[in-house]
């Protein structure tokens, strides 16, 4: 299907006329289209999330519509448990699963550079942890060769293990590449879904609404505020809360690094920073929040109802959760282990985890937040325009 898809795209770009060639749908996309036809005739789930109101603006579901809807879906499970057409019904409607399968495919399709999209299929838990371990081992060996691996660090200065410029030289390119790759991917996604979502430009209220939906994770609240589903048909706010701890923990850690960078380059204040300092406070609070959040998400993921989402993507989910946990745990250990002979070893472990996180970022679960935010932004734009479908009864 992939090569057919590429051919179709080529055909579209070659076609030099007003009649657009409709891209051929993959099996997963066809399944979303089939289910949306059923949902659009039912509409009981309209109150849960953004997917169903967006669906009611359409009578037919093309490739771009399906990609857009798939990334709007938060896999909250509400529509599955409420569905009168869910298996064992012969209509076999399972929107969260159908959407997840397409979502996984869009990550591959929109990966940049395209050749690296295959990495999405090999980004499991084992690989993530092996990568972190290998990188840490590499650093351990490097430090050992310098003779500074155990007990040699004076005080708690890890720049004596790895000089600052060496760290910047290692991490900046990987980080910048991750940002570039994700940016390029989401840009192409945006260009594909914009015409399918009215084509209207962004505006401030839409941006504010989308930001609110992202930052509060509005669509994990079930539409009524009691939350979404995890192991059964009961509502829970746990997924939303652990996501928040993870997301804001990550952002605080990122802020800690950013502030430290400013300190270093602008004020010339070199690390390490003492506890009452801003980078340390942000880092410690963020690190703990990230640890708790990822531990919670791990537990929820392991107990998740088997009908939710795409089981084939579980290794990717767990790999990402594990790397985030390892990053925060090793970071905190590094702080607690300052002044001990284990400092250099802990530093290697932490740097290995961070490096693995950055390296897998553009081809792993991290992208879901970016693509979903883009879809939510298009939804916020689209919903402000009159519904193109005028139903008689309304």
């Amino acid at each position, binding site marked *: 299907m992939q090569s057919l898809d590429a051919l179709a795209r080529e055909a579209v770009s070659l076609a030099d006329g007003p009649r657009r060639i409709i891209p051929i749908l993959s099996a997963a996309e066809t399944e979303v289209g089939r289910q949306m*036809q*059923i949902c*659009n*005739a*039912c*509409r*009981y*789930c*309209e*109150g*849960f999330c953004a997917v169903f*109101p967006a669906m*009611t603006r359409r*009578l037919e579901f093309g490739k771009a519509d399906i990609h857009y809807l798939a990334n709007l879906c938060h896999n909250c499970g*509400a*529509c599955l*448990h*409420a*569905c*009168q*057409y869910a*298996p*064992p*019904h*012969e*209509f076999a409607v399972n929107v969260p699963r159908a959407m997840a399968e397409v979502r996984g495919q869009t990550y591959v399709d929109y990966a940049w550079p395209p050749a690296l999209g295959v990495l999405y299929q090999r980004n499991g838990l084992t690989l993530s942890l092996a990568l972190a371990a290998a990188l840490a081992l590499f650093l351990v060996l490097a430090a050992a060769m310098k003779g500074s691996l155990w007990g040699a660090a004076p005080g708690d200065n890890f720049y004596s293990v790895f000089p600052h410029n060496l760290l910047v030289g290692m991490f900046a390119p990987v980080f910048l590449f991750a940002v570039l790759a994700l940016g390029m991917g989401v840009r192409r996604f945006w260009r594909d879904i914009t015409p399918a979502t009215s084509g209207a430009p962004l505006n401030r209220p839409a941006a504010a609404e989308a930001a609110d939906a992202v930052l509060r994770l509005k669509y994990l609240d079930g*539409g*009524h505020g*009691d939350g979404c589903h995890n192991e059964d*048909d*009961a509502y829970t706010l746990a997924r939303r809360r652990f996501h928040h701890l993870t997301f804001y923990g990550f952002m605080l850690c990122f802020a800690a690094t950013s502030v430290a960078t400013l300190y270093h380059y602008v004020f010339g204040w070199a690390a390490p920073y003492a506890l009452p300092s801003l980078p340390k406070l942000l880092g410690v609070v963020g690190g703990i929040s990230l640890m708790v959040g990822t531990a919670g998400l791990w537990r929820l993921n392991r107990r998740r109802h088997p009908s939710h989402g795409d089981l084939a993507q579980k290794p990717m989910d767990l790999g990402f959760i594990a790397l985030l946990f390892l990053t925060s745990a090793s970071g905190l250990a590094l702080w607690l282990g300052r002044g001990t002979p284990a400092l250099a070893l802990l530093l290697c472990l932490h740097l290995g985890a961070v490096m693995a996180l950055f390296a897998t970022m553009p081809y792993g679960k991290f992208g879901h937040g970016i693509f979903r935010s883009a879809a939510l932004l298009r939804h916020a734009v689209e919903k402000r325009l009159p*519904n*193109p*479908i*005028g*139903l*008689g*009864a*309304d």
Partner: protein
Amino acid sequence: MNDEQFDVLIAGGGNAALCAALMAREAGVSVLLLEAAPKAWRGGNSQHTRNLRCMHDAPQDVLVEAYPEEEYWQDLLKVTGGLTDEHLARLVIRASSSCRDWMRSHGVHFQPPLSGALHVARTNAFFMGGGKALVNAYYRSAERLGVQIRYGTPVVSVELDGNRFVAVHTEAGERIAARSCVLAAGGFESNREWLREAWGQNERGEWPADNFLIRGTRFNQGVLLKQMIDAGADAIGEPSQGHMVAIDARAPLYDGGICTRIDCVSLGVVVNREARRFYDEGEDFWPKRYAIWGRLVAQQPGQVAYSVIDKKAIGRFMPPVFPGTVADTLPELARQLGLDETTFLQTIADYNAACRAGRFDHTALDDCHTEGLAPAKTHWARPIDTAPFHAYPLRPGITFTYLGLKVDATAAVRFGDQPSPNLFVAGEMMAGNVLGKGYTAGVGMSIGTAFGRIAGTRAAAVALQQKESHHAIA
């Protein structure tokens, strides 16, 4: 009497049964609920519902404006053509104004009307996620409160001592006694044999019910209804009466639910197998007329009809679940549908010639109508002349039957006009007391909720009384 005996036994597992179980449990008695369906299919027809028709004198959370008791009653009177019991109907209407806080306390969420249903924004409160979400919430609440639930346990008979309930017998042969019992096991709409018998043979020699589709559960076989009537319980209603709509002929035999509806009837014409029109498609807004079209189609040869529209109607009605038959010309459409081409073209030509153009407005009762045509089309009549042409096949879809057990305001089952002291009935098994014929959206759930709660409360009170007198004797 041993400790294991349940106070209240509920036969059924849909909305009325759950309301009864929850009320009884809240009253402090032990409750056993026997659901015929396995867990995946639990909830009877309630899993396909979406709203509750509610009386209210002022705006109330998701409900706008007011829907006073009198207006509700008049609506009910109109759709039933007077085949209703005013006392019981008003009881249901009043209960609908105050039951929603209780429903919320058991986890039901309400939302404003769905798109395509703004016409009931004033009268109906929608369940967020629909009836299955409501059923799930009630089951969770029941489990939490300690109601014992057994799935896949159909009750096949009720053991009586005179008019007193003694025990039930399950399909597996188990006898379960209880102090009191609520029957809430649905109508007989899933029982095709019974439907065949009820509808009989028509003048064409057809058995119309053989061509009916059942919109809901396959588990409403009417076993207990039949057994109770055979045991001498007072019945009410005609077996051929029920809530019946015209649905897509390609719908599954059971559980097609809401999505198999065809909402374009009023935007075009409907022809039967002989390619002739048979009723005014534009009599009123579709939501006010959908409940009569099942019966209309049932009266046509072969119990089939075709809703025909042209390009102008596309996008103006709820999208159907199955794609229509599409053709660029009317003769081609007739051929694809297997209709007599000459008659079909004549029917459309006659209709097109009779259309008097006005200001088409599908959101109002507009002035587009036919003149000199029988049957007339009184609104939204526009010539069918713009390709492509679309057609959807229609069959009668039965939602639930109205033959039931006669009750008074206590929900007690009656024998020779005397109430049973400890046997009650709720839901579809007694909805015919209020709905002799016809239907209006959301009223089935209003009846089920009101009488389910009454039956549960009464059953619990009887059980408590029995326990007290038992203790007193002991």
